[in-house]
């Protein structure tokens, strides 16, 4: 990895966290490992690997709800560093996932730091209003907090990507086959947690049986996700219509 590539990854991580990519748009796109991994791959010259690893890492965070008690992890950092290390270290996707998730946990420290320090700028905004200079509020709301965020995110990500990349291959080789095998087993199971976190929100009442239906359709018929998605849409419509005909709740 060149210094320039490392710096670009740092900037990518900043953009994923930043509000300058149209607020929620950045949060729903660059912040997701699916997109972040793909862009990481583009920067490092291997978009396909970046995309595949990023997509797998994203499975862990598929039901990520920032407001609720979902997995406290920084999926953006996990996606960028996980796919960067997979590309530079030649890691398996599952092993990259097993490394990425702890990275994501460390990344939440940046989030806490940012939300704590940002309180200062809220008072600065008050001061601009108090002085009768509302046109300056943007300095306190956007310019300064975003500058701070840039230094808080881009630099650690650059350092981790640049130096991590030079050591990852040696470290993996030193760990040996058994450790790598265990990491692959762990990484393979991890999406169960990501899916479990989403189930908390939707695995309710009458909808439960459809979870098993989707599972069986995939296992026995090998249908693609898109095919199951359309079938699921039809099932949902038919079910809602039938429920209306009977005119009431069918509580199970």
């Amino acid at each position, binding site marked *: 990895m060149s210094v320039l590539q490392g710096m670009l990854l740092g900037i990518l991580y900043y953009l994923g966290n930043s509000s300058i990519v149209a607020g929620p748009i950045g949060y729903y796109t660059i912040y997701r490992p699916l997109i972040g991994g793909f862009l990481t791959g583009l920067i490092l010259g291997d978009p396909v690997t970046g995309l595949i690893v990023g997509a797998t890492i994203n499975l862990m965070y598929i039901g990520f709800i920032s407001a609720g008690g979902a997995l406290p992890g920084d999926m953006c950092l996990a996606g960028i560093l996980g796919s960067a290390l997979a590309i530079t270290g030649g890691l398996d996707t599952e092993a990259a996932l097993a490394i990425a998730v702890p990275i994501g946990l460390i990344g939440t420290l940046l989030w806490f730091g940012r939300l704590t320090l940002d309180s200062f700028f809220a008072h600065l905004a008050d001061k601009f209003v108090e002085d009768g200079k509302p046109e300056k509020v943007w300095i306190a709301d956007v310019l300064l907090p975003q500058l701070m965020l840039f230094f808080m995110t881009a630099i650690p990500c650059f350092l981790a990507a640049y130096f991590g990349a030079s050591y990852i291959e040696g470290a993996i080789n030193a760990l040996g086959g058994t450790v790598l095998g265990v990491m692959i087993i762990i990484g393979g199971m991890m999406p169960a947690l990501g899916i479990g976190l989403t189930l908390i929100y939707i695995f309710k009442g009458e909808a439960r049986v459809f979870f098993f239906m989707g599972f069986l359709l*995939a296992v026995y018929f090998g249908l693609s996700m898109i095919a199951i998605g359309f079938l699921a849409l039809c099932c949902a419509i038919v079910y809602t219509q039938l429920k209306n005909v009977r005119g009431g709740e069918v509580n199970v």
Partner: protein
Amino acid sequence: MSDQVKKETNKLTDKEVRRSWITWLFNNQANYNYERMMGTGFMHSMVPIAKKLYKDDVEKQKEMLKRHAGFFNCEPCLGSSITGLTVAMEEQKAAGGDIDGEAITSIKTGLMGPISGIGDSVIQGVIVPLLLAFAIDMASTGNMAAPIIYALIMIAVVFGISYSLFMMGYKKGSDAILKLLENGIINKIISGANIMGCMVLGALVANYVSMSCGIQISQSVESVFNVQEQLFDAIIPKLLPLLMTLSCYQMLKKGLSSVKVLLVIVAVGIIGGMTGILG
């Protein structure tokens, strides 16, 4: 500047209203902080409104902006309806309508909770996971159209919801928002979406959680009973991933934090991998 042309009327034009929306869309979390969450962002989006409504009265500008400097936290896409509504209420107040500052604040903060509840469960709980499930499935074969399609759909969804709800809040007021929240259609869509989400997640378990039993029992010198192939694969091939997912769900539901569940997975992986039970 068009400001000078309309100096006599302080009514808002499309220009300020749109500016307020754009400011909200971009900056609601620009200065996200523990003290007031999106408070600074909310106040920022009121700046173009205050400057227009009280063009010649700096004190009134101050009074209005201070009112919006406090705590605010809401799901930002659906929450833009509150921002739009606040613009309408401030405009009404500036025109001498009988609405006081406290009423504006209490309506604003009162809507925050219910709108976040719906917004988080619809957007982050249903739309995003469903789109991601399809995109991840496409992407796992290296299809580069997947991230692009996903991103384009998300951009359309966020812009569409944010803009139309801002304008609805601004033009139709709180009654319209409350009616939308109470409307049975939303509940029907949520329950339908739950069904769809459950089915897609079930398929995700089958395709993306991998776990297999490595136990092999030697029956005689030549024949070995492979538990995974000859027992699980013969009945339900992905039984272990299904059980693992349901166990994670149960642990989370019992109140275990996700980090603890993660540690359980790591422990199972280490024990299972070292002993050869998993493989």
